[in-house]
């Protein structure tokens, strides 16, 4: 059974930093775990109570909800290789990326 990944990405408005983070996350997921991920993007300016609930300080913050344990990556995710490593997108039973 392939692991499903679930993410919440907290951004602050439609700044270029927010756009970069969303773009980076989508391309990472498409590249490593196509069809096995869910992303919900939360704009803290629109839903500050969500940021409150998850105790988010910085934006962008990516929260990996699944698989457990949950973990957080702060920043615009610009270093894709490192993000993939931290999020555990790469695992032994994964197909190596075609590129």
């Amino acid at each position: 059974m392939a692991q499903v990944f679930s993410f919440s990405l907290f951004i602050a408005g439609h700044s270029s930093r927010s756009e970069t983070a969303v773009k980076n996350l989508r391309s990472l997921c498409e590249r490593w775990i196509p069809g096995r991920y869910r992303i919900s993007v939360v704009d803290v300016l629109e839903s500050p109570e969500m940021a409150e609930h998850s105790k988010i300080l910085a934006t962008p913050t990516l929260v990996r909800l699944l698989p457990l344990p949950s973990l957080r990556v702060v920043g615009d995710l610009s270093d894709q290789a490192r993000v993939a490593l931290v999020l555990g997108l790469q695992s032994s039973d994964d197909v190596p990326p075609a590129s």
Partner: protein
Amino acid sequence: MSQPARFVEKLATGISGFDFIADGGLPLGRATLVTGTAGSAKTVFASQFLADGIRQFDEPGVFVTFEESPEDIRRNLFSLGWDIADWERRGKWVFIDATPQPEEESVVIGAFDLGALLARIEQSVAQVGARRIIFDAFGSVLLRFPDLAMIRQEMLRVVAGLKRLELTAVLTAERMQEYGEVVRHGIEEFVADNVVILRNVLEDEKRRRTLEILKFRGATHQKGEFPFTIVPEAGVVVLPLSAIELKQKSSNLRISSGNSELDRMCGGGFFRDSIILVSGATGTGKTLMTTEFIAGGFEAGERCLLFAFEESREQLFRNALGWGVDFEKMEAEGRLKVMCVYPETAGLEDHLIGMKEVVEEFRPNRMAVDSLSALERVATLRGFREFVISFTSFIKHHEIAGLFTSTTPTLMGGTSATETHISTITDSIILLRYVEMHGEMRRGLTVLKMRGSGHDKEIREFGISADGMNIGKPFRNIYGILSGMPRHLSPSEADRIGSLFNDEV
């Protein structure tokens, strides 16, 4: 564009004594950095800024915590008697939990900002209509992100955001030492235009807490360190000692010292709102004079208060009874209050606050402290001086006659620290001294100073009996008593000198 010479408005914090030294309060709509070493009461001070806002001005506040969990803070402040949870329920206080989430690993990759924090602040501020906000352990944010330049800039942005929201903010940050660099990394310094330093210095084995306003950009404040203490309910109480104004009225009304002969020596008694210092070695009769002073007030229908720092209640009452004064009966009538306290039970600042409370509650017409010098033991010299000045001006302000005793360091006299610090603010000074005469110890008394009145200049002998102090004749043919080195003149020599000056006074 900067607006030159713009008047900086202040927001009264409600923190006792602080608003006085801050010339009104914290700069309104600005951030003030409060810094100090671990345990310097930064969190209490900051929390109190919110608590007093609620209690005194009905101004709700937001508490952003970066280090301790809200649960811990609620519990810690509950020990001061503050029910934070109740304020939260009533929508007066709201926490923003910005503590690190230890159960979740956190990594920083790429550029970020503190937009989420700002959004949460804006939401909470709107939710309760906050005018006050505090960031507790704001400095710790620096340690959570690797890119110092970026986090620094972001912290600045958040502080700018507070200004936009017209919030008056207190930001706390820890410093490593009591003196020297204001805070670690020297960063928060430029975050806030206003810096307050809390100190908790160990001096001569005694803890001394002080507060200093280092700067208020564009606004005035009192300079220097002011002692403070922390008491239940009130919280931080700053003692603006050196800033006391000399505005006391003075009265020409005379009151009895409790001893008619002493009244006569003083030209008709003490003045009603005067400070009287009685100095003497141990056993010279200071406690007796105190007892008579209290009894004299009681007989005149006054309310009397006695602070005893040297003797236990039983001892004090027994001694008084031996001189024909029944303290127990007087207390039962409700016009006397005797407080026996061991100086070591509290710091001087706490004694000061406690004593002031008793005075304000009991509202005495006269009071005595036996002995003031016992309090020297629990304070530094500077702290003691401030205490004396503060307390004496306090009772003067309340138009209370105060008699303070001071024990001299040696049996034959000499000057104690108490006398050095109090003598200039006393209105009357009475010296009690041992006098050695012909191989026998006698006791002598003199009125050294009696502000605004003539007084007896002689040194009179006195005895102590079952009816108290009996002031007798002046010592003749003896000099050097006050220096502790009495010398005798032979009668013939005295007569000869006497005849040189035909002066009866």
